[in-house]
Structures are given as structure tokens and as C-alpha cells.
């Protein structure tokens, strides 16, 4: 259908529309009009992605000069591919409606591992190996050597791309990862570099967060993207953690040991080159003196490891004299390494700030702040000069150099914690130096500053106002949308007690309590008897799940559950879990029914959807608080309190509730879907917890479903499931939660729609 969103013609590739989609597009358009940022929460399964795409593409077509590019960031590879497929659908609709050929170029970008078509390289299993191997075939000096010595292997796909690929732009169209690979195979071009080159002039780019947020990668990939772009972060409920992760470093003793080897290798290589080709080192020195860091137009394949700090923090000046010559720099590294080793030889926990660390290092080994800041830069230059092919081997020393640069660049928002041993095993020495970023706004700041509109959206962003605070930006729109429903297809229940009236809670004092564990088991057992097909249960942590499973096994609860359904359990091993997941789906598919025991914050809870019969009920055992004894977390909480006036408890609850919402939200993926959401902890009934759930879940929690016993839960669930099992037709939805174009245009409906969005 064709919509009129405040004067903008939007092509929407479906015959019907959900009211909230319309409302969402309205808000989105206002955000774009204002050239500002927005925070939009819309329930999963209400067609958020297609609404976003429809509106922004329409906007791009209408105002090609205002918005030149859409950068769509999502979290996982399947998500990325889904977005591109939805986009394809939209574009096909455009072509059908307008009859003209579409001149849009949209493409997905992913790591080399997902895009490489080189037979040898792509057969490697890990992303890092692929990257390293690729580098060893495409680095500029390798290619130079290939000229004089044709037996030196190079990647023919890159050569071909380099020779012709840049002149001929990729024909317009929609390119998913597989399409890029197909295109690359057909032309004999490297799809990865083709995609990286093409994002510069593509209308729509879909890639993962890291390409914008991790300065190490963003600098390479996204540096030249136009300012007049709209950036969308989908599934953004965890964006602060992504920001923090991209700027934090951990150093163990093993890292340092491997560093030592790296330094020795460097020294030997320098020695060798000095004897054979001293001119090369002199050339590098000259270049550094002149401050031409990247003067020899860094070829794209060379910049393998980029600067860890944000671009505006990188010093635009010549590298200081003390580390200009290769030997001096290696000596400098050695000193730094020895210092770190000494710091790790402690018996008590140390926590200090960056300035403290810098002062200490100056006093102990006379290392200045300035050369430290250039450490990453200098190492990169050295590795290139030495023509080291297998960069992956040098990851420890690179890590150290990044640490050096980060610690000397940022004096605020970071903390250094040195722990001599793990909390659980105080007898075993395992010193770790955590250099931890506490302020997510540092990494995302350049994005907000650079692009005219940044939209943060997800199914679970409640409470909305916390994101602008922790990410430190000023949004022009903030809205939470409800899910209009013709039938209440979600049924949140808070179970607080067992049938024996013992309170159920995963709080620390009672979590090992026998009665609690037994009641949890009974709840699962009872549910397994009444819920058809799949049940997913989430625990607060992996250790907790292990313990509970073990005691359920001893008590024979698991055996009784097995009478009803098969049991699959998430393990720390991703491959094993994938297998369990697939078997789980198989069991749901063939009618046996299954239970998946899983962990909140785990991979399953973040990336896997349980549509329809794959998840008819989700049980959240306990409140998934993060491990609060961690010193890093404590430091972060302190920082949040001091800098953003967010109370510790507020943040912890917010964090727990967003994960709980994420978990239970996995089961509802549309209006024809239905599912039970069971919160098995009495603390959920409290207003401060409940109030932090997304609005679309909250409004279905009645006072009658606050502190249920297991029996009551079973009764309510039975009732709900029986109702949901009735046929659900389009006519039931039409006019309420599903609209035709005519219905949409009626005054009354527009009135109603305006209430869907709740401005925060």
C-alpha cells in the first residue's frame, strides 16, 4: 500500500498495516525532519524493520540531498541478512508499483570470514585466521614481491578486484552476503574488498555495530561515510556494553609471556634487516621524522590493525624521537613489558586511575606519556616496515600497544584493576590487569557527533530515559509503542510462591535453598505437562543452572519432566549448544515437544528467536542480575553515580530487567504468535522491577497475576492456552490490530493511533 506520512509518500510492501507501524513511521519521520537523534521502543514482531526501511527509503527518495545514506547496524549475522531480505522485498514492491528500475544500491558488509571466496582462506574456521591469511596474501609488500617473484602467492580475487573492480561500480541492486559472494565468483573479484569499497557510494549499508563503534575497525571501514547519513542501531538494548567492550583491554600473564616472544622476534628481524637492507629502516626513520605517518598512502590491505583510540584523539604530529628508531622502540617496548610484569607480581588487589598509572610508570621506569600515546601507531609502522606477514601472531604485542595508547590518551572514564587471583580460587595465582572502560558514551560519541540522525531502537529499551543518560546524547524523539492486539496473545505471569507457600526467589540468600529449587522444579514439571511443543527456560547464570540441574537430577524431577518432553541444555560450548538448539527445534517440529534450559545473557537469549511452536512458554527463573561482586562492575557503578547521577540499584535493576525482557520477548514474534511469559521470582511483583519492563509487557500484567502459586499459574496458563488454540482469523484482527488503507485514513483511527506512542 501507499501511505501518506505527514506529506511523505511511503511505499509499504504489504496490503495491511499494524497501527503501531504507522505510529512508528510518524515518529521516525519527525526525527529525520529534525535532523536529530531518536530512541524508539517497539515490541518485537510488529514489523519494526520493514517500517524503518520503508520510511527511510521513502525519505531518501524524496529528499536525496538531505539524507544520502542509511547505515543500518544490527547485532548478528542472521539479523543482518534478514534486514537485507526485507529490503529486497521493499525494493521489489517499488519496482512493481512504479514500474521503473530501481537505482538503489544496498549491501551487507561482514567480516572476511563470511565473505571470502578464496578456496584456501575461506576454509579456515576462525575469523582471526581468515583475516591473518588474507593479510598474508594481499599486503602491499607481498604484492610488490609478487611482481619480482611470481612464485610468491597472492590472492587472485584481490588482484582482479584491484585491477578492474574499482573502475566499474557494482550495478545497483540489493546484495546480501551470498549475493556478494556470487557476484564476486562471477567476476573473479574479492567480495570483501568490493563490499568495503562499495559502501562508500551505496545508498544503504547493513553491517554490524562494531564497524561503527569499535574504533579499531571503524577507522578502517567507516571513516569516509557521508555525514548526511541516517544511522540506525537495531536491537540496541545492549549498545552500552558493545561500546564498553570495544575499548576495554585485559592483560594476563600469558599475554605478557607471548609478548616477550613477540619482542624477541621483532628484535631478531630488525637485526637481520639491518644487515641486509638497512636502507629500509633508514627510510622509515626519515618518514617518521617528517611526521608522514601514513604518507605513503596506506593501502587498504595494509591497515590491518588500526588505532584503538577514537579518531579525534589521535595526535596529528610526528612520532617522538625517543621511539623513532626501530631498536629504540623495541627497547621501549621491553621496558614497558617488564614494568607490566612487575605490576602483575602482586598479592592484593589494586585499583587505580589512568593518571595514577602514568605517574607510577614514569617514576618506576621513566616512560613518558607522549611516547606511550604513539605506541600503537609506531608498532604498526614497524610491523609494516619489517614486512611481517603473519600479523595474527603479533596480537599480544598489539594488545599491549593498544593498552599503552588508550591509557595515555584517556584520563577519565577508565579504570585499571589488577587482581592477583580469581575470587573463587584464592589459592591459585592468576593475575589479570583489567583496563576497563566505564563510560559507554566515549565510544559512541563520534557517531552522534558525526551523523545527522542516529536512531536507537529495539523491542526492549525501557526505561527509555536511561539510554540518553548513559550514552550522553540529546534525542529529539523518545517514544515507546505498545502492541495493539485483537486478542491478548501474551500472558505474563509472576509466580512468587510454590504450592507450599515458600517464596520463590533467586536472591542470593535463598537461591541454594532446597525448597526454592524444588519449587522451581515443580513449576517446570507442571508447565511441561500443559504447554504444547516448546518451552524455553532461562536461568540467571550458568553456574546457577548447573547447580539446579544437578539437584533436579538428584531429586528425580528431571526424570519426571522427561516423561513429558525432551530436555536440552545450553552449555558454554557454542557448537554443542547449536546442536542442542537444532535438536530442540527438531523435537518441537515433530511433535514430541522439548524444553530448552538456557541462560540469560547467554548467546541463546541474545540471538535466537523462538517463534510459534518453538516457544509456547518462556520461564524466567529468578531475576538475572549481573554478578555484583565484580570489581569492574563496582567501578562502573561508582562512575555512573558520580558522572550521570544514576543510582547503583537503579542501574542494576534496569540491567536485570532488560535482560529478563529480552529473554521472555524471544517467544513472541508477531501477532499471530502466542506465548506464556512466566517470571518465577517474587521480586518481579515489586513496582520498581515491574515498572522497568517494556510497556507492551507491563500493560498485560494484571494485579491478579502478581504473586501466584504454582497451581494458580497452571490454571491461568491452561485457560490462556485453550483460548489461544482457537482459530485466529484476519477478520478478528482487522480494524483493531490490523488495518487496511481505508481504515487507516479514518479520523477515528488516526486519533487512536496517536495514543499508541507514549512519549517519554
Amino acid at each position: 500500500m501507499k501511505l501518506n506520512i505527514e506529506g511523505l509518500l511511503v511505499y509499504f510492501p504489504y496490503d495491511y498495516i499494524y497501527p503501531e507501524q504507522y505510529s512508528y513511521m510518524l515518529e521516525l519521520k519527525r526525527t529525520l525532519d529534525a535532523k536529530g537523534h531518536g530512541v524508539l521502543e517497539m515490541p518485537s514482531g510488529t514489523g519494526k524493520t520493514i517500517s524503518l526501511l520503508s520510511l527511510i527509503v521513502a525519505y531518501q527518495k524524496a529528499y536525496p540531498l538531505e539524507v544520502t545514506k542509511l547505515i543500518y547496524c544490527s547485532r548478528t549475522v542472521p539479523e543482518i541478512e534478514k534486514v537485507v531480505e526485507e529490503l529486497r522485498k521493499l525494493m521489489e514492491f517499488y519496482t512493481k508499483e512504479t514500474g521503473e528500475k530501481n537505482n538503489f544500491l544496498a549491501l551487507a558488509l561482514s567480516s572476511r570470514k563470511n565473505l571470502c571466496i578464496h578456496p584456501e582462506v575461506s576454509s579456515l574456521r576462525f575469523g582471526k585466521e581468515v583475516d591473518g591469511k588474507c593479510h598474508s596474501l594481499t599486503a602491499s609488500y607481498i604484492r610488490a614481491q609478487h611482481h619480482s617473484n611470481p612464485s610468491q602467492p597472492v590472492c587472485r580475487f584481490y588482484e582482479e578486484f584491484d585491477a578492474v573492480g574499482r573502475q566499474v561500480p557494482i550495478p545497483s541492486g540489493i546484495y546480501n552476503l551470498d549475493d556478494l559472494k556470487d557476484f564476486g565468483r562471477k567476476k573473479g573479484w574479492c567480495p570483501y574488498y568490493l563490499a568495503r569499497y562499495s559502501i562508500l557510494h551505496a545508498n544503504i549499508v547493513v553491517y554490524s555495530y562494531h564497524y561503527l563503534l569499535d574504533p579499531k575497525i571503524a577507522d578502517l571501514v567507516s571513516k569516509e561515510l557521508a555525514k548526511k547519513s541516517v544511522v540506525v542501531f537495531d536491537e540496541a538494548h545492549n549498545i552500552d556494553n558493545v561500546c564498553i567492550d570495544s575499548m576495554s583491554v585485559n592483560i594476563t600473564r600469558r599475554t605478557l609471556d607471548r609478548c616477550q616472544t613477540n619482542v624477541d622476534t621483532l628484535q631478531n628481524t630488525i637485526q637481520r634487516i639491518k644487515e641486509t637492507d638497512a636502507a629500509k629502516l633508514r627510510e622509515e626513520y626519515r618518514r617518521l621524522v617528517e611526521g608522514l605517518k601514513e604518507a605513503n598512502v596506506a593501502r587498504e590491505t595494509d591497515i590491518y590493525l588500526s588505532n584503538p583510540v577514537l579518531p579525534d584523539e589521535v595526535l596529528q604530529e610526528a612520532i617522538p624521537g625517543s621511539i623513532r628508531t626501530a631498536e629504540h622502540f623495541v627497547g621501549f617496548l621491553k621496558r614497558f613489558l617488564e614494568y607490566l610484569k612487575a605490576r602483575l607480581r602482586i598479592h592484593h588487589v589494586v585499583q587505580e586511575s589512568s593518571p595514577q598509572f602514568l605517574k607510577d610508570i614514569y617514576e618506576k621506569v621513566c616512560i613518558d606519556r607522549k611516547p606511550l600515546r604513539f605506541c600503537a601507531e609506531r608498532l604498526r609502522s614497524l610491523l609494516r616496515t619489517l614486512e611481517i606477514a603473519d600479523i595474527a601472531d603479533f596480537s599480544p604485542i598489539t594488545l599491549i600497544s593498544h593498552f599503552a595508547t588508550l591509557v595515555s590518551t584517556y584520563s577519565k572514564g577508565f579504570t585499571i584493576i589488577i587482581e592477583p587471583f580469581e575470587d573463587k580460587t584464592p589459592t591459585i595465582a592468576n593475575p589479570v590487569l583489567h583496563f576497563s572502560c566505564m563510560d559507554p558514551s566515549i565510544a559512541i560519541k563520534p557517531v552522534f557527533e558525526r551523523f545527522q540522525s542516529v536512531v536507537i531502537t529495539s523491542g526492549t529499551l525501557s526505561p527509555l530515559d536511561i539510554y540518553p543518560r548513559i550514552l550522553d546524547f540529546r534525542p529529539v524523539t523518545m517514544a515507546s509503542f505498545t502492541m495493539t492486539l485483537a486478542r491478548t496473545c501474551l500472558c505474563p505471569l509472576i509466580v512468587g510462591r510454590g504450592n507450599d507457600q515458600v517464596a520463590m526467589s533467586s536472591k542470593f540468600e535463598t537461591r541454594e535453598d532446597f525448597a526454592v529449587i524444588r519449587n522451581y522444579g515443580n513449576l517446570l514439571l507442571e508447565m511441561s505437562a500443559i504447554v504444547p511443543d516448546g518451552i524455553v527456560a532461562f536461568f540467571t547464570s550458568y553456574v546457577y543452572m548447573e547447580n539446579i540441574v544437578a539437584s533436579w537430577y538428584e531429586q528425580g524431577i528431571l526424570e519426571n519432566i522427561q516423561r513429558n518432553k525432551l530436555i536440552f541444555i545450553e552449555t558454554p560450548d557454542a557448537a554443542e549448544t547449536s546442536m542442542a538448539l537444532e535438536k530442540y527445534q527438531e523435537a518441537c517440529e515433530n511433535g514430541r515437544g522439548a524444553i530448552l534450559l538456557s541462560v540469560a545473557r547467554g548467546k541463546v537469549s541474545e540471538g535466537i528467536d523462538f517463534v510459534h511452536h518453538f516457544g509456547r512458554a518462556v520461564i524466567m527463573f529468578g531475576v538475572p542480575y549481573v554478578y555484583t561482586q565484580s570489581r569492574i562492575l563496582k567501578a562502573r557503578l561508582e562512575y555512573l553515580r558520580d558522572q550521570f547521577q544514576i543510582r547503583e540499584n537503579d542501574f542494576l535493576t534496569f540491567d536485570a530487567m532488560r535482560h529478563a525482557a529480552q529473554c521472555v520477548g524471544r517467544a513472541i514474534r508477531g501477532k499471530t504468535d502466542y506465548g506464556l511469559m512466566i517470571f518465577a521470582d517474587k521480586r518481579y511483583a515489586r513496582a520498581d522491577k515491574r515498572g522497568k519492563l517494556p510497556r507492551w509487557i507491563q500493560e498485560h500484567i494484571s494485579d491478579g497475576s502478581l504473586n501466584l502459586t504454582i497451581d494458580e499459574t497452571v490454571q491461568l496458563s491452561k485457560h490462556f492456552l485453550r483460548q489461544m488454540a482457537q482459530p485466529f482469523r484476519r477478520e478478528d484482527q482487522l480494524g483493531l490490530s490490523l488495518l487496511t488503507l481505508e481504515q487507516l485514513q479514518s479520523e477515528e483511527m488516526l486519533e487512536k493511533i496517536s495514543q499508541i506512542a507514549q512519549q517519554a
Partner: protein
Amino acid sequence: MAALSEEVLLVVKRVRQRKQDGTLYLMTERIAWGPEGKDRFTVSHLYADIRCQKISPDGKSKIQLQLVLHTGESTTFHFANESTALKDRDAAKDLLQQLLPKFKKKANKQLEEKNKMLQEDPVLFQLYKDLVVSQVISAEEFWASRLKLSSVEHSLSNNSKQEVGISAAFLADIRPQTDGCNGLKYNLTSDIIESIFKTYPAVKQKYAENVPHNLTEKEFWTRFFQSHYFHRDRINTGQQDIFSECAKQDEKGLKSMVVQGVKNPMVDLLSLEDKTLDEGYGSLTVGPNSSKTVKENSNSAIIKRFNHHSAMVLAAGLRKVDAPSDQASETSSTDGNSRDSDFFQPPIKKVKLQEAIEYEDLQNGSGPKTIALNLKKSDRYSHGPVPLQSHHYSTSQDIINSVNCIQEEISCYKPCLTRVMPSSAASSAITALSPGGLLMQAGTQQAVSQLVPTDVQSELKHLYTAAGELLRHFWSCFPVNTPFLEEKVVKMRSNLERFQSTKLRPFQEKIQREYLSTNVRLLLLVNL
């Protein structure tokens, strides 16, 4: 015979049979014996024909091995090589022990299947009685065409009876009970044993290896319940029991499953992340947690076990239905090892992606997905069952032609209203002609069923089906294009003649004797 390239598994010299020295050969498919000095076998049994083997007791002076066949015959071999007789015999016995079960299953399966078919289908059973028991045709001939037919049927209708799956909790059903004096009693039923075997093939193998000779059945299960394999939360304390190997095999199986990876890219957690942080970056150290306590180890063992158990139960259920028609299983055959499957992956990936982005309620007219009709013979479907006429098949073209003909005739038809009888006359004629009416009262047209006693009727029915079956055999030989078929035609003809003489004639005569008045029609039927 020996020209056929068979692998000879064991040769034992100096074996006597019927007081003759000779050599015993154990081959992959059969056991054979040839007298000394001659290059052909005088005794040769397919393993499938052997019911069991018997050996002479240890104390006996003659060291013998007896083979009992399904037919009841038996052959005795006497191992006559003084020094190694016992060893020879045991070698032969062991090999046979391994080989026989394999073939037994095959033979038994067929027998079972035949038996089942006969039991389920009374008509077939009668036919079998009429033709085989009365030795009109041999059993083999009878089954030769039947089994083929049935296997087609089976694959078409996907078996009339569904395989019963395995309860996931079958191990839980074996609740141990104390027997009062410091012991435990486990109740095992054959169902549970079967479930265990189906789910854990390794245990089955152990059972087959050990049970008759090393352990009694009871001992075997006792050890099973004592083993850490059964109580998986106990960490293997190193004691050697026969099941430690099973555990290892399970682990291997699990590993291979994991290595195989998953077919559905949407659940592949390994490729979920686009760009993982390099080692050392990130705020949480998820380093290898080497220091695990025994307790934790056993906990994770339980978790592993449950995953494995569920997977095995699921697989045991699926093993039977080998051809589920969803695309997942179709592609499974094409993608071999994980990485090379890159080229095969896109279709299933595409499907899954499309599924994931679909909003069924937003779209118009996306009617319920239909399953494509899979027809083996499409013209049979469109024409319905045609009576088996041996002389003339009407092709669809013929039918169309004749329909056209009739249509033309009808269009040409002009009723001559002047020559029509008055309606009263017509109706009286009809009543007179209908049964019970004036004209029909004394007639022979009274329903045959009322005249003929039921036993004769049923006999007639049987004869009719038997004749039909024979004729089917007969006609299935056409076109006669191989000498084998020609031979069969001749044989079938003689069969038919024999059937005529042994069955039809007596029946005809009997009826002629008893029901002279009604026989005209019956004879017509009988003679076809």
C-alpha cells in the same frame, strides 16, 4: 560356484562330514564344505538359512559343530585335526556367532513381514491357503510379486502403522526398589530393554558381544546398573567395567555430532557474531576456567548427558521414518562435510530467511500452504480404478473419443414422441418387470445370493480371487521378452490348468449337481 568372487573368511582343513575328509570354508554369505581332492562343494548353506549352531560338549572326544537349518535339516562337521581341532572349531564357532545374527535378522524380518501381511489381510491369507497350501504355486512365486507390491505400497502410504517412539523417561521407569536386605531390585521389561538398545546402540553391541557366553543376561544388566555409565553423575573412578567403552563411544558420537555442525544457519551460534572481539579485548574475561571442582565437573557431565540422551532418543525415533519430506532432510544428504557445503547452503538459508521475515497477517491471500500431490501414475489418478480387463485397455484417448461419440449421438437424438407408449402402460410394465412383480415372480432372476447358501458363495469368492491372482501372475509375464519370463509363462499356464482341474472342476460339478436350476449364471461366472 567358486568362480563367484566371494571373500573367504576362514578355511579349516581336515573337517569330516559324513565320514569324508574335506575342507570347511566360511564365506561372507554362506558356509561351504568340499571333500578333499575335489574342487566343488558338496555342502553349501547360506547363513540366512541357518537357524542355529550347536557344538559338542567340551569333554567329548569328537569335536563337532552342528548347523541346524530353518527347514529342520542339520549338517554335522567333525573337526578331525587332532592337535588343533578344538581351536579350529572355536574359530569357526566364533566367526559364525558374529555372522549369523546379521543374516538372521534379515531372514527373520522377511518372515515377520510376510506373517504380518497374512495376518493383517484375511483375503490374502485365504489366497495363500488356496494357492500355496494346496500347492498350486510355490510360496516363493506367491511372494515374489507380493513383496514388491507391498514395498511400493509401504513407501507410498508411509506405512500403515506408525513406529512407536521411545519415551524420553524410559530410564526413569526403572525405579530401583529395595528388596529389604540391603539390595536393590530393578524392574526391566522387554520394552525398556528395547528402548535402551535403540537409544544406545553401544550397549546393544556390548550385549551382543557378551551375553550368551561371557555373562548371563542377568549379570549383564546388573553390571549395567552398577556402572557409572548408568549413573552418569558419578565421575568415572577409573575402575574398568565393560561400559566404560560405551561412554567413550557416546562421547565420540556427541563430538561428531557437534563437529558436523548444524544445518539451519539461523541457530548456528558459531557464526552468529559478525566480528568477535579479539582475545584480550572486552570487559569480561571469559578465559578458560581450568580450575573446576569435581562437583562442577560432574554437573556439566549431567548436562552433557541430558543433551546426548535427548538427541539419541530423538534420533531413535527418527531413524525409522527415513524419508520425512521436509526440505531439511533433503539437503542433509547433499551437504557433506560442513565447510564444503558452502555451495549447498544458500537454498535452505534462503528458505529460513524468508520464513523469518514473513508476516502472514500483513499479506493478502497467502492461503494455507498446500502439499504437492505426489502421483506415481497420474493417469490412474485421473481415471480412477479401471476393472482389470486382460484383453483390452481403453486408453484415455479412446475414452475421450467415445465420450465425443456419445455426445454426438445424443445431440442427434430426436425423441419420437408419437411412438411412445402411454405412461400408464409403461409404469405397469416396469412394475411387472421389477423383482416381485408379475413377470419376475417365478423367474430365475431372483438374487443369486438368496438362492445359494453362503458357504458356496464364499467358496466361489475365494475361487474367484484365487483365479484372479493366478491370472495376475500370468499376465504380469507379458510382454514376454526374456527367456526367464517365457519359462514363467509356461509354468503359469500349467499352474492355471492345474488350478482348473483341481479346484474349478470339482466345484463346477458340485454346483451342477446341487443347483441345476441356477447354474447357468454361476457357471458363466466361474468360467469367466
